[in-house]
């Protein structure tokens, strides 16, 4: 009688890629719901647009590459990329922003490098950075929370704004973004950055209407939603807890040090945690198994590095938020970090070169 001899691992969780991708997409739902509640329909429309484009782009490229179209189009990775792009775009950006972003993410960042599992950069964030650098005006059309807008947008109005630039009553995006007192509203991070450059303190900036009672109307709940979804993913063991934990710890420590040194010019730790793309980046972007580091030690280093970079760019850089940039920089560093954090194999001395 012959035994079938195979090397470890001997038991597998027979999950397919599509099941994991679906799980991650479900986990984005709380965050998207919060976005819908506070910022209206814009992001959902962008997500749908990006999904359609991503599937079409994936289909075209895969048929050009003569791959198995059915399995790979439906494995959900393109859809997840599209969801992440749609979530991170400004709600009132024109329609071609999400179309160009999805095409770039799928065709250039993912498929040209060899498809799923071969891309050195996170496709969604690479597309976001490409859009931000190429179309700075459209990519900063952040919509203020609906409770502060003097013109309420229905679904049809949002759709019309995204496709034509005007609502059905003829209001332009700039008018929509104007506060009842006549100034254009920005995101909390943007407001803080502008206020600090004109000489206001952080305490004074916190009185701004977009910031509200806590850290930013809407933004705190969107981040809380993504935090919830992320915790769900950790419980389901879809992602490892080390990357988000080290990222959040790093951001916390950096902002705490700055806050203790000069509280007038540095925002509080929780302001940094619950603003911008912080939680989305921590749980959904940095944990990308393809473009991140693979060993546990490497993941901790990536998280620490990303937190430091986010803080440095938010505080000293030209852009108000920095998750996309720091994710790309960490993606570049990941192979090197992997090289130096190889775990010891059983039976070998650590540091044994042979």
């Amino acid at each position, binding site marked *: 009688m012959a035994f079938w001899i195979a090397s470890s691992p001997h038991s597998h969780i027979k999950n397919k890629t599509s099941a994991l991708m679906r799980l991650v997409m479900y986990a984005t739902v709380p965050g998207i719901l919060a976005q819908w509640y506070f910022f209206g329909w814009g992001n959902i429309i962008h997500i749908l647009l990006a999904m359609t484009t991503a599937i079409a782009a994936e289909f075209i490229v895969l048929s050009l590459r003569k791959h198995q179209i059915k399995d790979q189009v439906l494995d959900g990775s393109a859809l997840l990329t599209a969801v992440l792009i749609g979530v991170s775009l400004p709600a009132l950006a024109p329609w071609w922003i999400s179309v160009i972003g999805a095409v770039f993410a799928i065709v*250039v960042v993912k498929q*040209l490098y060899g498809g799923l599992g071969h891309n050195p950069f996170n496709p969604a964030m690479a597309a976001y950075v*490409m859009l931000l*650098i*190429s*179309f*700075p*005006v*459209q990519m900063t059309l952040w919509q203020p929370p609906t409770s502060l807008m003097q013109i309420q947008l229905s679904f049809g109005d949002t759709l019309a704004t995204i496709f034509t630039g005007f609502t059905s009553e003829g209001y332009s995006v700039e008018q929509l973004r104007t506060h009842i007192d006549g100034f254009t509203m920005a995101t909390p991070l943007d407001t803080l950055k502008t206020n600090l450059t004109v000489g206001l303190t952080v305490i004074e900036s916190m009185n701004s209407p977009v910031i509200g009672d806590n850290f930013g109307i809407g933004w705190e709940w969107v981040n809380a939603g993504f935090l919830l979804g992320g915790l769900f993913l950790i419980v389901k063991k879809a992602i490892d807890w080390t990357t988000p934990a080290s990222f959040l710890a790093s951001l916390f420590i950096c902002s705490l040090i700055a806050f203790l040194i000069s509280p007038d010019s540095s925002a509080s730790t929780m302001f940094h945690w619950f603003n911008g793309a912080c939680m989305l980046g921590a749980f959904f972007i940095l944990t990308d198994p393809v473009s991140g580091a693979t060993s546990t030690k490497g993941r901790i280093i990536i998280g620490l590095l990303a937190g430091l970079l986010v803080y440095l760019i938010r505080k000293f850089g030209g852009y108000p938020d920095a998750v996309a940039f720091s994710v790309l920089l960490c993606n570049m560093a990941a192979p090197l970090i992997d090289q130096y954090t190889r775990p010891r194999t059983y039976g070998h001395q650590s540091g044994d070169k042979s």
Partner: protein
Amino acid sequence: MKLNPEYKDLAWQGLWKNNPGLVQLLGLCPLLAVTSTVTNALGLGLATLFVLVCSNATVSLIRHWVPKEIRIPIFVLIIAAFVTCVQLLMNAFTYDLYKSLGIFLPLIVTNCAIIGRAEAYASKNPLKQASFDGLMMGIGFMLVLLTLGVVREVLGQGTIFDGANLLLGEWATVLRIEVFQFDSQFLLAVLPPGAFIAMGFLIALKNYIDTKVAERQPNVEQQSIERVRVNFDAQ
């Protein structure tokens, strides 16, 4: 007129098979930095073409008297002399273009495509072939510059030949073609990363055409002499 097969081969090598931009990937720095508009690309392409022809001719003329050990410094000196001529000429006659090309005009000295041709071809071949090789390589390089310039200018600004009057004189303003109107520039195409991406697509296109052509070629039956192989080692 019957073309000498040697010249034909030189032209084929310079324009397509061994194109300095697409195949040798030499001189990428100016290639990527200044091709944001067609005018810039054409200006730099013409300057490089001129320098390449002149330096190839000169190197070929003096090839018997150049000591092998110090040939590279001599080649660089020759190239630098011609680049200085071009730079002063452009400063005098096309001042605006000279300003928009900036540092990349004097940097033609360090363009590996030029010193590569001087070293690899001109220093071993007679004057006529060497100059012709310089001309073909220069045209090949200029065509790549122009293609990149067209792609990036159309994507970035929606125009072709914007500012051609800077290079060609006042009459050239009519060359400006507005392909389509943008509300906003596509900045990626104007910035250097866009040049890298466009360059990658160009190289992919060239390789694609090459494989298609190779597939079209009828398979030439290799005439081989059948021999009985006796292999004692094999069991």
